[in-house]
C-alpha cells in the first residue's frame, strides 16, 4: 500500500508540475467552461469545495483523524459570514475574517474534547458534535433563521486600494474564489512538508512512538483539527457568498459524508492532490450523470463502492501505481550533500 509519505520529502520537483497545471486550469476555466457545455457557477462551487477538501485532508489524510462531522465548520463559516453582513456591516474581509475565526473557535472547543480519543471513538464524537451544531442551526430561529436559514446575504465588493471589483458578477467572483483556493493549496503544501506536517504524519503512523520521542500528541491533534476547521470556515464564508444564503443543510451529516467520500475517491489518503481530483470528479459526475439520469447518486455511490473494493487508494493512487509500473527512480530523493 502506498501512502502519503511516498511524496518526496523535499518540495519542488513533485509539486511544481501539478501546481502549474492546477493554476493553469483554474486560470483558464472561464474561457472554456461554457463552450464545453458547463457553466461558470460550477467553477465557483468546485473551487470552494477544493478549499474545503484540502483543509479537511490535513486532518483526514495527513493526521489520520477521521472526522465525519466536518460539514459543521463549513456551516459555521457560512452563518458567521451571513450574520456579519446582516448584523454588523457589509464587508468582504470582515465577513471572511469572521467566518474563519468562528470556525477556528468552534474547532478549538470541539478539538479539546476530541483530542485524547482515537479511532472509532474519535469518529463518533465528531459526528455527535456535528449534529449538535446542525441542531442549533435548526432550532435557534432568532439567530439562524431556522430551517429557512439566512437569506439575501450580499456579496460585498472587493476593494483593493482604488480598485473596486463587483463580485455579484459570477466571473469576477470566480477569480476571487480561485485565487483564494490557489493560495490555500500553496499554504497547505508548505505546511504538510514542513516539520509541522511531518509530525502530523508521524502521529498518523504511530501515536505512541511520537509521544515517546517528546511530542505532545494531544496538542498536535488539537491543532490539526482546529486548523482544518478554519479552512472549512473560510470555504463556508465563500459558500455563503456563492449561494447568497446560509442554511442548515450546509452543515448536515450528508455534507460531512460527502467531503469524506470526495477525499477518499480522489485519493487524499495517498496524495496531496487527491482531494482536488475527488471534488472535480464529484461535480462532473453530478452534472454529467445528473443530466442523464435522476438516479445519478446511485451510480456515484456504486462508483464509490467499487473504488473502495478494488482501489482503496483512490484515483490518485491509480495514477501512482501506473507510474510505478514505468521505469522509475527512487521515490525519495536524496539531497546532494548527504
Amino acid at each position, binding site marked *: 500500500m502506498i*501512502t*502519503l*509519505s*511516498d511524496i518526496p*520529502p*523535499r*518540495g519542488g520537483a513533485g509539486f511544481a508540475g501539478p501546481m502549474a497545471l492546477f493554476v493553469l486550469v483554474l486560470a483558464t476555466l472561464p474561457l472554456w467552461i461554457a463552450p464545453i457545455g458547463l457553466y461558470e457557477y460550477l467553477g465557483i462551487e468546485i473551487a470552494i469545495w477544493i478549499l474545503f477538501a484540502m483543509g479537511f485532508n490535513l486532518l483526514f489524510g495527513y493526521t489520520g483523524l477521521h472526522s465525519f462531522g466536518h460539514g459543521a465548520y463549513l456551516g459555521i463559516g457560512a452563518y458567521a459570514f451571513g450574520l456579519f453582513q446582516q448584523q454588523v456591516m457589509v464587508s468582504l474581509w470582515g465577513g471572511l475574517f469572521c467566518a474563519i475565526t468562528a470556525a477556528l473557535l468552534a474547532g478549538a472547543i470541539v478539538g479539546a474534547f476530541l483530542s485524547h480519543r482515537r479511532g472509532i471513538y474519535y469518529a463518533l464524537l465528531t459526528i455527535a458534535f456535528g449534529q449538535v451544531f446542525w441542531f442549533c442551526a435548526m432550532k435557534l430561529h432568532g439567530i439562524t433563521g431556522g430551517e429557512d436559514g439566512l437569506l439575501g446575504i450580499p456579496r460585498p465588493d472587493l476593494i483593493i486600494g482604488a480598485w473596486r471589483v463587483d463580485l455579484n458578477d459570477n466571473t469576477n467572483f470566480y477569480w476571487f474564489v480561485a485565487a483564494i483556493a490557489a493560495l490555500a493549496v500553496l499554504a497547505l503544501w*508548505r*505546511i504538510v*512538508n*514542513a*516539520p*509541522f*506536517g*511531518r*509530525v502530523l*504524519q*508521524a502521529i498518523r*503512523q*504511530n501515536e*505512541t*512512538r*511520537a*509521544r*515517546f*520521542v*517528546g*511530542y*505532545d*500528541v494531544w496538542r498536535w491533534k488539537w491543532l490539526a483539527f482546529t486548523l482544518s476547521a478554519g479552512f472549512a470556515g473560510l470555504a463556508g464564508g465563500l459558500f455563503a457568498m456563492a449561494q447568497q444564503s446560509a442554511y442548515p443543510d450546509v452543515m448536515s451529516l450528508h455534507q460531512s459524508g460527502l467531503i469524506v467520500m470526495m477525499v477518499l475517491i480522489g485519493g487524499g489518503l495517498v496524495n496531496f492532490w487527491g482531494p482536488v481530483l475527488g471534488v472535480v470528479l464529484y461535480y462532473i459526475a453530478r452534472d454529467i450523470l445528473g443530466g442523464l439520469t435522476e438516479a445519478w447518486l446511485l451510480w456515484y455511490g456504486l462508483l464509490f463502492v467499487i473504488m473502495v473494493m478494488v482501489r482503496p487508494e483512490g484515483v490518485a493512487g491509480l495514477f501512482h501505481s501506473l507510474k510505478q509500473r514505468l521505469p522509475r527512480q*527512487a521515490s*525519495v530523493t*536524496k*539531497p546532494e*550533500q*548527504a
Partner: protein
Amino acid sequence: MALFRAEGIQKRFGARVVLENITLSIEAGSVHGIMGPNGAGKTTCFHVLTGHHAPDAGRITFDGRDITGLKPHVIARLGVSRSFQMMNLFDDAVVIENVMLALPAFRAISGRPFRTSFGDSRLIEAALEVLDQVGLAERAWHNAKSLSYGDRRALEIAVALAAEPRILFLDEPTAGLGAKATQNLAQLIRRLRQRYTICLIEHDMRFLFELADRISVIHWGQVIAEGAPEALKANKWVARSALGEVA
C-alpha cells in the same frame, strides 16, 4: 548518586495487581539489567517508569527530580528515552525520517508550520550520525518498512538515541534476533554504554550477564533479587525463576 530511582512502585489494572512493590536504583553510567519470567511485570514496569502508565503508588525520580505521573512526552524531553518490545516505528517514512523526527533540534522547529524540513543539512547530518552508530547510515533513504527484522530492531534503538537521552530504556532488544545479530547488538551496547546510562529488559541470560553491571530480578511484580551478575548466578531462586520454574 543514582541517576534514576523508583521506590515502592505499585500498579493495578482493575483488581489485578501487576506491580506489587518495585524499587530500583540505576547508577549513572551503568548498564542495569532487568530479568524475570514471562508475565512477571517487566514491560509494565518500563511503561510506568517512562510515563506510559501512572503508578498507583510510589515515587520515581530522575536526576533528583520527581517525575512520578508526568506525561510521557514530558519525561522524554527530560532525557529519558526508550525502545519497545513490539516494534514501534514510523513505518510509512524513510529510515532517516524516523530518526529526524526524534531529534530535539527537529522538535524545536516543528511548531513553525512553514519551515521546510529536508533542506536543513545540519538535521540530516545529525540524523546520519545517529544512524551510523547503529550501522544503518547506508540504508538512510530506504523505506523503514523495507528493512530486515534485525535492521528494524537497530532502527528502534536509533530512534531512541536520536532523542538525545541521558538514560536509555531498552525493552528486550534481542527478541527474535539470531546469534550473529545478537552478537552485533552486544557490541553496540558496549559502545553505547560509554555515552549513556542503559537499563534493559532481557530474556537472554547469557547476553545480560555479559553486559550488565547490576541486575534486578522481577517476579510476581516484585524485585526478588538484585546484585552483580556473579552474585546472582549463585542464587538458586534466580536461576529457577528465570527458567520459569517458580510458579
